[in-house]
């Protein structure tokens, strides 16, 4: 009765897995499969929670694109909180990359002074590099009385020369403060250096009652109305708390021109990537067939069962990759295909054990149970060490931003975890169900007629062995 539940769970999981894995355009994956219906993808909505997946998330090496590691020169921003400076740099990068129109870019910090930028599908990398490489440009603008357009405000500097008022004169200490009078409205407070204070005083005197545009990289971020003459310190009002925080970061980033340089660049053309995907699918298919043939030839009926379990394994693992989602890279796919080879190991261990138990005279049912129970400890120990290695690989990849290695470790680890389920839970319930029918009670189907490896004993020690008695 319990086994029926196990089978049901397996069947339901497999069906869910298949629904997730089924490609949107089957013809792309199955030769001649154009007539098959495509999957609508996963689209769930639970209240405000929305979950949507259209297929596997492919890494840059498979879909084409650029991976950059940028180094921010922190020596140009002395005495400041580095994490804050880096956060500012990222804000600026994000805005620029979004403005550039890259689908699903990835921008994240690495360590204390680095930023990883991944731009899928970007081919003209020089343009993108130009875009992200510039330091944030903050300036103050006034409306041209004639045209009404914003133009950079100019005032006379301390040395008598006309100067544009930019973030160059900012002290990088803009922060969010709260206005005590107006019911604790958030404001962004900023401070100029001497030159900036001199310029700003002239400008605010000129612009009282008029808007003053604050621009970051040619985009207006705020246009408050000047209410008083300000020299050194000022506040920007009329922003919500979240905006104020962003603005403070942006102001600091705009004010701190940290030079950025590229210390690592990896670009892959999209055609090369899709070629790799096709090759990986072929390699995966061939591997599966070879392993299946091997298992059926070596273990007969249980081998066939293991092949079914292996198929379920592949479907479930791919489904997890899509649902998490795990970004699939070339090395990650290799890790997955390798795990197909390794996933049968648990079955091989169990089947070998089963065979031994059969030879020792156990009944089929007892041998199956004993095979699973006795082999469990080595299956478990062996997989724990693989997980340890995966953990270290992941860490190794993370330390220097090698998403390739992280992807490999993650896919291998998920594979190992699922193989424990498929090789033990699935195979066991399938085998139990099968040995329920009488036609399977033929030892030939289990390949147990092969002679038993006997414990070799030196002649002088045979006495001892006979005391133990051969296992019957």
């Amino acid at each position, binding site marked *: 009765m319990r086994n029926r539940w196990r089978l049901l769970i397996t069947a339901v999981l497999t069906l869910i897995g298949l629904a997730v894995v089924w490609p949107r355009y089957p013809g792309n994956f199955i030769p001649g499969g154009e007539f098959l219906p495509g999957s609508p993808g996963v689209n769930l909505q639970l209240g405000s929670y929305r979950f949507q997946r259209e297929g596997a998330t492919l890494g840059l*090496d498979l879909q084409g694109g650029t991976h950059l590691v940028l180094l921010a020169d922190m020596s140009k921003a002395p005495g400041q909180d580095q994490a804050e400076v880096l956060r500012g740099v990222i804000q600026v990068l994000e805005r620029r990359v979004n403005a550039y129109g890259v689908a699903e870019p990835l921008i994240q910090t690495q360590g204390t002074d680095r930023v990883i930028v991944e731009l899928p599908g970007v081919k003209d*990398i*020089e343009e993108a590099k*130009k875009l992200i*490489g*510039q330091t944030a440009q903050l300036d103050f603008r006034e409306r041209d009385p004639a045209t009404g357009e914003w133009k950079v405000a100019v005032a006379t500097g301390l040395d008598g020369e006309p100067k544009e008022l930019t973030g160059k004169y900012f002290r990088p200490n803009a922060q969010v403060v709260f206005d005590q009078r107006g019911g604790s409205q958030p404001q962004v407070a900023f401070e100029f250096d001497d030159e900036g204070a001199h310029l700003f005083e002239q400008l605010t005197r000129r612009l009282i009652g008029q808007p003053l545009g604050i621009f970051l990289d040619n985009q207006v971020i705020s246009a408050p109305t000047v209410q008083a003459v300000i020299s050194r310190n000022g506040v920007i009002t009329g922003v919500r708390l979240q905006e104020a925080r962003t603005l403070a970061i942006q102001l600091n980033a705009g004010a701190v*021109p940290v*030079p*950025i*340089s*590229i*210390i*690592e*660049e*990896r*670009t892959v*053309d999209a055609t*090369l990537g899709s070629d790799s995907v096709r*090759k*990986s699918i072929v*390699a995966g298919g*061939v*591997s599966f067939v070879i*392993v299946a043939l*091997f298992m059926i030839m070596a273990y007969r009926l249980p081998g066939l069962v293991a092949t079914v379990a292996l198929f379920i394994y592949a479907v479930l693992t791919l489904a997890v990759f899509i649902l998490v989602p795990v970004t699939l890279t*070339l*090395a990650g796919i*290799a*890790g997955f*295909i*390798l795990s197909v*080879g*390794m996933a*049968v*190991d648990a079955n*091989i*261990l169990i089947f070998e054990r089963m065979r031994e138990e059969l030879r020792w005279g156990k009944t089929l049912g007892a041998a199956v149970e004993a095979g699973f129970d006795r082999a469990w*400890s*080595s299956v478990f*120990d*062996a*997989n*724990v*060490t*693989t997980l*340890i*290695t995966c953990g*270290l*690989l992941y860490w*190794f990849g993370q*330390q*220097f931003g090698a998403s390739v*290695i992280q992807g490999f470790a993650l896919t291998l680890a998920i594979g190992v975890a699922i193989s424990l389920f498929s090789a033990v839970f699935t195979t066991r319930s399938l085998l139990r169900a099968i040995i329920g029918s009488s036609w399977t009670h033929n030892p030939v189907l289990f390949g147990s007629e092969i002679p038993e*490896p*006997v*414990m*070799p*004993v030196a002649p002088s*020690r045979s006495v001892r062995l006979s005391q*133990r008695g051969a296992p019957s």
Partner: protein
Amino acid sequence: MSFDFVRHRFKFYALSLALIVPGVLSLLLPGGIRPGIDFSSGTIMTVRFEGPVEQTVLREALDDLGHSEAIVQRSDNNSYVIRLRAFEQALTETIETGGRSERQVIVAGLTERFGPVEVLSLDSVSPIVATETVWYSMLAVAAASVGILLYLWWAFRRVPHPVRFGACAVAALVHEALLLLGVFSILGRLFGIEVDSLFISATLTVIGFAVHDTITVFDRIRENFIRHAGEPIEDIINHSLAQTLVRSLSTGMCVILTLVALYLFGGVTIRNFILALLIGIVAGTYGSIFNASMLLYSWEHGELGNFFRRFTGRRGIPARAT
């Protein structure tokens, strides 16, 4: 089936030693291993031209463009792999001066001479990153060994001398790692195969797999220790090896077949990675049968202690040194 592994252990030791000697020699000689750009910094570009371009002409063109260090390799039809030093990519300066990046200079220069060029892939790693990668690689391999040693020590805590199980497994995996490194050192000399960070992944995977294999054998030894308490240890080890041999070979076979399929049908980009896995896994299957268990026997039998005592004893008597 009833093969006396233990009796032949010295032959296996000799074989294991013989297997790593050429590789280790190659490693120790100058230029032992060819580091890829991940470790040594540099740039690798794959470019495709629309028409045929002579290798020597391309080489000269790159020389003209200020890259006398360029190494050009033909890939497939009209495609070339070009190796250069790491690009200087101080982004801000390039833009402020309105100058072109090194890559743009190369692409423009090549287009001018040979027509449209397509950059299929480009990898550029600066010395800062490369130095760190070397460091983290060593750390990762060391940490994996220690982690496995500790886990085995714990997993075998109910057996007498559990630390020996861990230590023998680690000794076997050091042998496999050396074998793999040695083979790649020789391959580097013969075919210019480089070692990159994917190679480190391969090494770690191989370590994981080899231990996986060793554990299966050790696990059976542990079981037989308890089941046949009082039996001579050589019988237990021989018997355990015989019982797990088919399984070790079957699993090894499955993984090797998978890797061969990947090598033949998978992308060219990961071919060296697959090759490293293939060599390592063959070595691992061998090592778990012939190294780890034999070492365990030698240790339990007191041979390891004797060996080291003899080793240190000899040093004390110079007259016998020759």
